[in-house]
């Protein structure tokens, strides 16, 4: 159809990139933000305490709280505090008999009313009262569950886009003839050439990351996308696949009759730490708490290995005996664990996390420069006509709405967090609505006036919204830069500073957009030079 392999790959690259580019931009931005979802959640709940206690004290408080409030639950699930998240999250699952039926008019609870949860202060053991917000978890969920559509559809759609992106990456590499020669090449102020260079460099410099994040993204949901292998290999019992492939602990037997008091949690954690030669605990799950055969699965802290499959130890809660350990994984399980782990980057310490975050931002720039590049390339073809064609107008509008509009939506989400009343019912949903209303407004603006002035306006608006966040923070809370930089709370201070940095970057983009003048063609330059020479000659 097209001449040559490279040209057909170039065509494929353009269309796989363009057709899903705007949705990919949302996915990439939300995903990149998710690297810091814990920190974002902390900033969005400034009431939460910053101090951290030892894991033993925290664990004791957790057990205390659960015994008081979830004594009859089947399972307790505890995530102990860590430097990134000082509050403690507790979940529990009640037996069927205690499931709460939905009240008329109330939204159906997830899990059919059997689940309970609490965020607890590890210092006091009391439930924490903080403003209702989804925090950074919203961005995390947004990037694969999207919003307003059923989760299953969203995941298929995101997987579809991810596959398009994977093809775009591969075809991009094939098409980029001078990938080594142009490795460091970025020619600025040259119009189309500059956009192409920018797109190329942002793609190539973080190519391992882009390829990895896209492939591993598909891997995280591959069981949903490709269930056929399971159905064929496990025709009678599909659940066996999950226990065999994902190397879990064996099933726990039904609760025994009779209650017995378990050993103190600190003793159990100590045995686990001793077994792991000092490596700390990240959390634990208790099955049938209070029963005579209660067991506890203690999980190791992340950060020592790439894989998400953290090792765990199972102890009998009454006798303290080690019952089992996570079995060694098969090769495919380990591979999948590493790939999943690379995507989530739970293992990353602050330095490596910053690398991932910057790479994610470069990915956003790559996608954004790609869709803008298409419009820049397409525009001269419409110069002959009086009006711009439908396709280009659509792309222009979507570009403005996505590239300039999404940052506005992100900033608006944070503004909503600080401005919405703390006691507002359904507050978390209200914050999410702010995000989408802001984005809708930007998209509408893009469609009404898809011109450079709208670009400039929206970029400046985004800059203002981001840059003023630290000020808004100071006006509405006690957790602003004046306090956090002094006390050394770098999570909260860092958030404010990064917002300032984004504001500055967007302002720079807006300024450049404002000052942009159309490039003069070589023929025009010659004409002007000849004209000048002519007047000079005539004047002499």
């Amino acid at each position: 159809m097209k001449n040559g392999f490279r040209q057909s790959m170039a065509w494929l690259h353009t269309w796989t990139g363009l057709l899903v580019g705007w949705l990919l931009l949302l996915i990439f931005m939300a995903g990149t933000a998710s690297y810091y979802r814990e920190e974002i959640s902390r900033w969005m709940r400034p009431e939460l305490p910053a101090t951290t206690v030892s894991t033993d004290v925290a664990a004791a408080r957790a057990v205390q709280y659960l015994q008081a409030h979830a004594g009859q639950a089947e399972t307790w699930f505890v995530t102990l505090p860590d430097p990134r998240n000082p509050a403690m999250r507790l979940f529990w699952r009640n037996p069927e008999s205690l499931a709460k039926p939905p009240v008329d008019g109330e939204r159906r609870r997830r899990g059919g009313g059997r689940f309970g949860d609490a965020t607890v202060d590890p210092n006091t053991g009391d439930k924490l009262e903080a403003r209702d917000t989804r925090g950074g978890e919203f961005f995390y969920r947004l990037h694969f569950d999207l919003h307003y559509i059923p989760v299953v559809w969203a995941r298929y759609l995101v997987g579809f886009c991810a596959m398009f992106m994977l093809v775009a990456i591969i075809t991009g590499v094939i098409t980029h003839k001078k990938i080594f020669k142009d490795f460091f090449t970025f020619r600025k102020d040259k119009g189309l050439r500059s956009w192409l260079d920018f797109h190329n460099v942002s793609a190539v410099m973080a190519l391992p990351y882009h390829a990895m994040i896209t492939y591993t993204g598909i891997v995280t949901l591959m069981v949903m996308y490709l269930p056929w292998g399971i159905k064929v290999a496990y025709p009678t019992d599909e659940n066996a696949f999950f226990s065999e492939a994902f190397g879990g602990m064996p099933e726990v037997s039904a609760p025994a009759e009779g209650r017995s008091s378990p050993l103190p949690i600190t003793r159990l954690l100590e045995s686990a730490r001793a077994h792991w030669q000092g490596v700390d605990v990240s959390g634990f799950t208790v099955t049938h708490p209070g029963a005579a055969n209660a067991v506890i699965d203690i999980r190791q802290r992340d950060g020592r290995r790439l894989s998400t499959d953290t090792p765990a130890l199972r102890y009998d809660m009454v006798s303290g005996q080690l019952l089992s350990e996570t079995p060694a994984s098969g090769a495919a399980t380990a591979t999948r664990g590493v790939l999943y782990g690379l995507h989530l980057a739970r293992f990353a310490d602050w330095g490596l996390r910053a690398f991932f975050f910057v790479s994610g931002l470069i990915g956003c720039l790559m996608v954004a420069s790609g869709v803008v590049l298409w419009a820049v390339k397409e525009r001269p073809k419409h110069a002959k006509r009086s009006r711009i064609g439908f396709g280009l107008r659509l792309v222009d509008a979507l570009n403005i709405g996505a590239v300039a509009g999404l940052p506005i939506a992100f900033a608006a989400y944070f503004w909503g967090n600080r401005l919405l009343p703390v006691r507002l019912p359904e507050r978390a949903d209200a914050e999410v609505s702010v995000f989408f209303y802001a984005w809708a407004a930007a998209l509408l603006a893009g469609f009404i006036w898809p011109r450079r002035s709208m670009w400039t306006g929206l970029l400046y608006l985004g800059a203002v919204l981001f840059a003023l966040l630290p000020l808004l923070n100071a006006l509405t809370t006690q957790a602003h830069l004046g306090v956090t930089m002094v006390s050394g709370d770098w999570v909260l201070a860092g958030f404010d500073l990064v917002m300032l940095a984004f504001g500055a970057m967007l302002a720079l983009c807006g300024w450049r957009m404002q000052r942009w003048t159309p490039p003069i063609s070589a023929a025009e330059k010659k004409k002007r030079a000849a004209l000048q020479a002519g007047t000079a000659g005539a004047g002499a």
Partner: protein
Amino acid sequence: MDRSSSSARPTTAQRLASCFTGPGVGVLSRSLAAMLGGYALASVTSVFCAVALPGARGQAVLTGMLVAIIVCACAALWAFAARTALHAWAGILLPALLMAAVARALGAWA
């Protein structure tokens, strides 16, 4: 007044036929081959690996999924690199049928 048939207005039959030979059709055909054919090939690959690979069942199934993703991407590339749309479909469906046959022989869909 005598006009040859080539300069007369095209008949309905001719217009219908041209629907299937325009340049857009090739692109549409290849796109379908890439997307639908690609997914079909990936699915069959995962099934094939699940039954054909040695070792534990669970591991074979997982490996099949990991490989199938790559296969899907490659199918998309092939669909647009092939000389004609027909070649595109052939290059995707033939391996799929082959793998399906072997998988069937090894016990899948029994």
